[in-house]
């Protein structure tokens, strides 16, 4: 009885690429750097092709992309499921807005908001870092809710009205390409950090093997704090960017969307990869924008997609594509 079975084989260059003798021809170089190059080109070209409305959507998508990468980094490589994206965005946005109201120019506000916001978020989350899994997810999810209720209740920072009249980007292209640049730096930086730098191994240990890390004389909380700081800086940039895109800061910066969407994007794109969240966010946010006409029904679509990916296609898009790219399949007789 001859039965057919699907066999998967690594492509030649992939087998060799794991070793030092990887590259032997231009074709193989292209195979290895092709995906990265394609990403750079797409990100650089796409804004040119869009209408002004979709350019703004692109910019907002960028913020979600950054949040998704920071979520994917924390969840997939450090083991902290952090649903505090809205917290990072809100803190970054408010710091940038407050600095701007006291006369600091915008191009200084954004880096300051990243630095101070990153520090603030890290210090605020510091007591929660020993928490694990679901507990950390819940507490980090509660933080933005807390601030979103605290600000209107106390009337600080403009209360419910927020801070209007802030400086905005004078140039649409500057707005777009700042985001493109930041995304490229972040995606390649983080992927290098976790895959090629030694510190990436420490982070992975923090995720998979707490005990060994402690027994290695490393302070778990210190490394978690570093990872949270990296993520928070990315989120705070998103917040500051949004602030100066609209020239306004309000409690909508603490919106739950910023916390949930990165989770969805990571699930769709693939958990445990850095490019997965990026792909996921670039798919989901524009789709959600395109479905705006359907009102809240789009969230139903969304939820269905999410459940589908989590339950029936856990691999995620990026891992699927990666497999197709790096291996070929054929049917063999058994």
């Amino acid at each position, binding site marked *: 009885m001859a039965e057919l079975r699907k066999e998967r084989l690594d492509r030649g260059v992939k087998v060799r690429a794991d070793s030092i003798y990887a590259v032997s021809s231009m074709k193989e170089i292209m195979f290895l750097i092709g995906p990265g190059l394609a990403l750079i080109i797409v990100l650089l070209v796409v804004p040119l092709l869009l209408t002004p409305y979709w350019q703004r959507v692109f910019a907002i998508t960028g913020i979600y992309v950054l949040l998704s990468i920071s979520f994917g980094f924390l969840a997939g490589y450090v083991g902290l499921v952090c649903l505090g994206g809205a917290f990072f965005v809100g803190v970054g946005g408010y710091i940038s807005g407050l600095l701007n109201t006291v006369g600091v120019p915008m191009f200084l506000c954004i880096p300051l908001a990243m630095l101070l916001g990153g520090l603030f978020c890290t210090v605020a989350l510091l007591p929660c870092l020993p928490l694990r899994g679901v507990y950390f997810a819940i507490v980090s999810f509660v933080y933005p809710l807390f601030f979103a209720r605290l600000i209107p209740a106390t009337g600080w920072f403009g209360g419910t009205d927020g801070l209007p009249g802030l400086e905005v980007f004078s140039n649409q292209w500057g707005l777009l390409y700042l985001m493109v640049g930041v995304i490229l730096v972040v995606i390649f930086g983080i992927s290098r950090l976790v895959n090629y730098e030694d510190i990436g191994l420490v982070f992975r240990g923090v995720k998979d093997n707490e005990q060994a890390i402690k027994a290695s004389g490393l302070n778990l909380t210190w490394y978690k704090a570093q990872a949270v700081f990296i993520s928070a800086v990315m989120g705070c940039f998103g917040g500051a960017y949004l602030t100066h895109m609209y020239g306004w800061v309000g409690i909508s910066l603490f919106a739950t969307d910023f916390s949930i969407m990165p*989770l969805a994007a990571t699930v769709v794109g693939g958990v445990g990869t850095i490019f997965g969240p990026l792909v996921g966010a670039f798919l989901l946010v524009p789709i959600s924008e395109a479905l705006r006409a359907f009102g809240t029904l789009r969230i139903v679509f969304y939820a269905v997609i999410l459940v589908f990916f989590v339950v029936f296609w856990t691999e995620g898009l990026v891992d699927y594509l990666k497999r197709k790219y790096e291996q070929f399949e054929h049917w063999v007789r058994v």
Partner: protein
Amino acid sequence: MELIVYGIVNSVILIMMSVGFALVYGVSRVPNFAHGALFILSGYLTWIFLNRFGLPYILAILLALILITIIGALLYRLIIIRVRGMPVSEIIASFGVGLAILEYLRWSGLRGMTYMLPPFIPGSTNIFGVVIDYQRILIVIGGLGLLAFLWFFTTYTKTGLALKAIAQNERAALALGIDADMAATVAVALGALFAGIAGVFILPKGNIVVEMGYEVLIFAIAVSVCGGLGSWKGAIYASFLIGFAQILTVKYIASHYHFVVALLVIIAVLITRPSGLFGKQKELEERV
């Protein structure tokens, strides 16, 4: 006096909202994030049976509760069972289902003042000089009844004991021939039923609105986490803690702080006692 009465009512409301969630997690380790959606759905179904089909109130409620229990069982059998053992996936899958239900209801017109359930017994009375409507009294009675049922169920019935066994030591329970999947199905269905009961008792207090679904979910999580995930007794204590904290804030600070205080309590409890007030997880983990 007013403080105590309203504090108790508020706490019992929290208990009703959260006990189903805590029970499901305690027995099957499934965080059922569709809890809030089931809560709203039961109210909505009751409203449909009552107003569209013109059924008597009590029949409408019963039908809605039966349906919600079946939905809970299906939710486990069709969706959650496929991602068992992966907590994050379980959360996302159940939250996704809840989200779909809630947003579908919103889209199909569930907003504003249109959807209202009548109170079981209209009017109000006077207890220790505090004016209180009958519905709130019924909530307290219902909540206590629910707890009594839960206690009876897990102490005296075979299914309840099986659930308890699984909660305490899954492997040993499996070795004794308890079907873990069946037990988890029962647990999720029971959790759905509790959410449904909470819905039909609490919703007549106001309108059926989608936001309430999210709020119920957040409170259920908050209470269960504070009490120690998996311990429904802890959830009861935590309900009283948060319930009274809220009433006290409304009385002495300002009403718009009441959510802030609830969140503050959660953060504070989790930071000082990472496994909740009555959680045992931490010690277990340390032993390994």
